[in-house]
């Protein structure tokens, strides 16, 4: 490297240094520190004490930890496929040439603009056992004892899944954009060959938008594992029988309420590894269903 090039390199580095410094101080350092603290008994206020793998070992025997993990996985298993199917159905409907299409798109997108805390407060009333909108409708349909969404441990997660599905406007918009990118020539060719609407959807549309569905699925897995705000607002102390104690909520409680920051850091690292593993698994299992370059 010549002297001039070296000088340019230093100038360039100096110019990007604000970002580099920020990245090092606000991202790299906290990540490294959290890894270190995960091996410590650390309460934020006093100095960390090295305890080796104790936090990780404690996780194995912590019943609430396992409950929070299972709640999060069950919720993800309910809300993710249902949310994707619902979003896809909506996107397909909104892709039809219907009157006031723009208005409908805006209406379905609106819930995703509602802050999670406000959504949680509103859904507390919508899911109210006695006077809630949903149970009023179910009673009107003749169901004598509709679900106790907020009080029955078996119904809290389906209730939260409803909230998640209600806010699927973002996914709808992304899928809608993908649907509009499906090559018209392919659809026309399929129609000429006598393919029904169902077969066109199954054999042309879905393969064509499969990378977008895959993207939403992966983002959904990561998002579902980190579900926090709505649950935090809707349920105190994890709800009935801790059925709504989610991983991220329990992590927050350990960090800021119980002041077990070391334990919370260990939980965060396990969540990171879990997310990594699930994403890898999702990409492995869905590889055969994702088609790129349909043009």
């Amino acid at each position: 490297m010549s002297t001039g090039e070296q000088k340019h390199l230093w100038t360039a580095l100096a110019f990007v240094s604000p970002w580099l410094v920020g990245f090092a101080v606000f991202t790299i350092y906290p990540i490294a520190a959290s890894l270190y603290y995960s091996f410590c008994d650390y309460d934020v206020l006093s100095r960390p004490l090295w305890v080796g793998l104790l936090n990780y070992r404690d996780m194995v025997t912590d019943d609430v930890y396992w409950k929070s993990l299972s709640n999060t996985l069950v919720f993800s298993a309910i809300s993710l496929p249902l949310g994707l199917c619902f979003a896809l159905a909506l996107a397909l409907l909104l892709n039809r040439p219907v009157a006031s299409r723009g208005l409908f798109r805006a209406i379905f997108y609106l819930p995703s603009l509602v802050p999670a805390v406000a959504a949680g407060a509103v859904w507390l009333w919508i899911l109210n056992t006695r006077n809630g909108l949903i149970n009023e409708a179910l009673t009107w349909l003749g169901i004598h004892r509709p679900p106790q969404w907020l009080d029955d441990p078996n119904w809290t997660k389906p209730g939260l899944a409803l909230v998640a599905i209600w806010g699927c406007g973002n996914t709808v918009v992304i899928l809608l954009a993908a649907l509009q990118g499906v090559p018209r020539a392919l659809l026309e060719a399929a129609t000429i060959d006598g393919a029904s609407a169902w077969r066109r959807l199954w054999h042309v549309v879905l393969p064509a938008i499969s990378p977008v569905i895959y993207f939403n699925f992966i983002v959904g897995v990561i998002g579902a594992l980190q579900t926090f705000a709505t649950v935090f607002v809707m349920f105190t102390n994890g709800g009935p029988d801790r059925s709504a104690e989610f991983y991220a909520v329990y992590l927050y409680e350990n960090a800021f309420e119980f002041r077990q920051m070391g334990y919370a850091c260990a939980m965060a690292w396990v969540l990171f590894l879990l997310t990594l593993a699930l994403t890898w698994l999702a990409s492995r299992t869905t590889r055969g269903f994702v088609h790129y370059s349909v043009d």
Partner: protein
Amino acid sequence: MVGALNLAGAAFLSLLLLAVPSGCTAKTDTPGERVIVNYWEKWAGFEAEAMQSIIDDFNRSQNRIEVRFLTISPIDVKLMLAASGGNPPDLAGLWEYSIPDFAEKGALLPLDDELANAGLGADHYVPVYWELCRHRGFTWALPSTPGCVALFYNKRLFREVGLDPDRPPRTFAEVEAMSRRLTRVELERNGRRVRVSFDELTAAERKSGRYTIVQVGHLPYDAGMFVSAWGFWFGAKYYDGDRRILADDAGNLAAFRWLRDTMTTYGVDQLKDFNASFGQSQTAQSPFLAGKAAMVMQGPWLLNFIEKYSPDLEWGVAPFPAAPGVSDHAPMTLVVSDMLVIPRGAKHPHEAFEFLRYTQRQDVAEKLAILQRKFTALREVSPDFAARNPNPAIGFFTALSRSPGARAVPRLSIWRDYDIEMTVAAMNVRYLIKTPEQALAEVQKRIQWRFDRVRRRWDLVGSERIAEWREDEHW
């Protein structure tokens, strides 16, 4: 030349970036000659206004210190983060149960030396409140406004069912009997919709569950933040004072069985339906403030909410009777208190203490108590204090807080976790998801595990910490 300019520009950008965070902690200490004491408190609304009035008096009374009040929520989390960042306020308002936790973690300054110099000590305070200020042999806080809980009842509802509105329950059995009588249900009888007392239901009608509860007498779970404290009324200990948690002791078990029996007597589904129409305690939607619950366990602060949400409510207040054999002579209560502390790392601890000492003067403490409609933790009470206090029950609460039957939650650094676990267990019993025995066994296991972790840490750092406190005493 251009290269030099580039370098200078880049260096300027970097400096700007580094300057931003440091700007946050820039000192704004002394406008004129006064030292600024930053005071963080959890209070908002009229409680904050009351303290602001005390601060204004103090700021006017001298020309060296200016106290600045800031409402912070949630104060325990924010104070912990500020203290760990080395930038805490000079004074902060915590709850009494947070003191052991903050003290053990080295977040507070011990006040003993300063208290001795100021001539303040155990003699000035009601013993039970003084004990709340102490932990592991040191004094960490002084009370701002204390409280204690009692049974509030709705006189109109008593009258409507033929009970004497000036004769609240005196025994635990009377609470139960009156509660059944005050519980009103609606049902179909001979093709007509009727409203009767729960006592008037036939055995078959109770068994069928075909009734709707429209008014309740007393519900143990409608006690706001005190659900985990019912054990005291049954003689529970909670903690042996050393290494053992006593969540599953006989007193707590009796309290949880009482909760379960209440649910099975009135019907879990019927009570769920009843509660679904209401919101939390201390809101306009609470059953008591809406005139749909005849009795509730609350503190003197409830008067502020009655005035705000239900000014026409005809209420009375009495000690909640303990279970037989627990406290037959002395009225029982649970004492709580808002506390003032000086965080470790405070920039002006001496000035903060000067204001803290000012708040403990009898005239000042009584003014704050009157403005917040509470009482004080001081032994001395002015003869006209009750007359000047707009809360008509203040004499009652002042006397109740001094009863030998007054109890406080154990001085455990993990009380908050303990309380949460007990609340979760109570909810599981309330919905009949777990038996009282199962629910409390889970609390015992979990809190003992948590406590063992805390003890393990204390065993490692305890002596070092106590040495540190001894040094800290002379700040």
